[in-house]
């Protein structure tokens, strides 16, 4: 494995052109997709895997995924349901897959971080400790992607 830490991971992601960033983002989110049952989230990730979606389609998918993100926030004062919160972060990661990139942003890095947060929420929900191997797995995914 050539990528060993987050600095290298981030630097490699930033160098990717937008289409490949989306594909990388989709691969990261795909790993945690089972934590969300929302079809809008799945549709965004599946489209991002293609990497070359038309602008109009991207916009529609973005709106739908963003609605899923907003609807899945835990409201102030409500009891935290960490399994549901994992779904919220998957939705957030899916938004990164289909959002329009702003300067200075890395869609794939954001998606990777939200996907890791989803995994963390899952571990809190299951009460199994907070060690996850998500980061290492993401390094491997990116390594593979860079080879193609």
């Amino acid at each position, binding site marked *: 494995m050539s990528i060993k*830490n*987050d*600095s290298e991971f981030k630097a490699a992601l930033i160098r990717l052109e937008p289409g490949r960033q989306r594909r990388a983002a989709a691969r990261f989110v795909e790993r945690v997709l089972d934590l969300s049952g929302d079809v809008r989230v799945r549709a965004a990730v599946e489209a991002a895997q293609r990497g070359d979606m038309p602008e109009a389609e991207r916009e529609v998918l973005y*709106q739908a995924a*963003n*609605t899923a993100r*907003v*609807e899945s*926030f*835990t*409201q*102030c*004062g*409500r*009891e*935290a349901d*960490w399994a549901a*919160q994992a779904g*919220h972060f998957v939705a957030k990661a899916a938004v990164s897959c289909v959002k329009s990139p*702003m*300067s*200075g942003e890395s869609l794939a890095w954001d998606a990777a*971080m939200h996907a*890791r*947060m989803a995994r*963390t*929420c899952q*571990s*809190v929900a299951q*009460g199994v400790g*907070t060690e996850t191997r998500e*980061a290492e797995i993401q390094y491997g995914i990116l390594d593979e992607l860079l080879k193609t």
Partner: protein
Amino acid sequence: MSASLDKGVRVLKEMIDAPIASYFNSCVHCGLCAEACLFYTESGDPKYTPIHKLEPMRRIYEQEYTLLGRLAKWTGLSKPVTDDELEQWKELVYNSCTMCGRCSLVCPVGNDIVYMVRKFREGMAVSGHAPEGIVGATQRTIQIGSPMGVRLPAVQAQVKHVEAEIGMNIPMDAEGAEYMVLLSSMEIINFPEYLSAIARIMRQAGKTWTLCSTAFEATNSGIQIGVSDLAKVIVSRIVEGAERLKVKTVISPECGHAYTALRWEGANLIGRPYGFKVQHILEVLDEFRAAGLIRTEGFEEGRLTFHDPCQLVRRGGVFEQPRNLMKMLAKDFVEMPDAGKMNWCCGGGGGASAIEEGAELRLVAFKRKKSQLEATGAQTLVTACANCRIVLEEGLEHYQMDIPVVGLTETIAEHLVEDRQA
């Protein structure tokens, strides 16, 4: 009369202190408070007139503490407050009051209506008429220490996530640190970026700071439901933690009511001065800015505006600080109409956002924020309260306005010179 109603009425009688008695006597029925309340202005329903929301309490005041009121009660001309009536008033005193303080500010005779609502809520809670959502939050606060049921392992999980993301250690229980940072439940659950931003900013400012394992939670649902004893327990936990760690300053997070509870009411609740200073995160950041301790580069794209959280600007006086900070980030910054101390609430403060049955009314009230935003043409909405942030997002989503909502602290962190060079 049921036992709970009896208890509630007794508490309400006790709550009627000199200020409340004088407020009821001073009210000139001018209706200015109605025009200041977004639940009235956006629905047009007169039942949402702020002073009317206190009607059962006013009757108790008259019947118990005025000669004419006592006579009217004795002759049966003035009816006693009933359980049904309080149940009916639940919507008025919780769902449609965010304790934003706009009504108190415009009252020409200086009646602090928010103070009265707080006291009324004490009686409502005791008589069993507080909304389920807020009761649940309160029970979790008593049992777990957090209204949203956040326990230390969840905070530690977030700490680990943030440490991995930014490659820095997040200090926990560091004795003698300059600052103790509190988090709101909302930040722990929904916005890990806040903690990440704090760590990066503190590093650049060269300040020592810590989280406290026994007092990480800032949210004070005792203030929201109207139970002073609970509010006191929550404040005491923070005071104990801060004094044990010997910190100089406790930083209240991007949460409106947490700031009010700790900064303005906490010392009175525990009955003694603190051994440390309390500041809102925006006050701290502005001090860092003025001292040249934080350096940013680049600007946000497009037009930005700032939503003033009510508890910060109107009840806390934190007005200049966010504007000074916005200048570091925005080339094109525009104020909303009525910005600053007369700003309109997001519609979800004071525990209102935890009340499921109030969701529809919140969206009606949001029409005011919508029109404020439309007047600016802003492309990004910045704020400094995690609760406002979610309520704003929901409102924007409902009215199909595509305006991203971001926290001021995290946005500053994104522009730190150090981070951009890393």
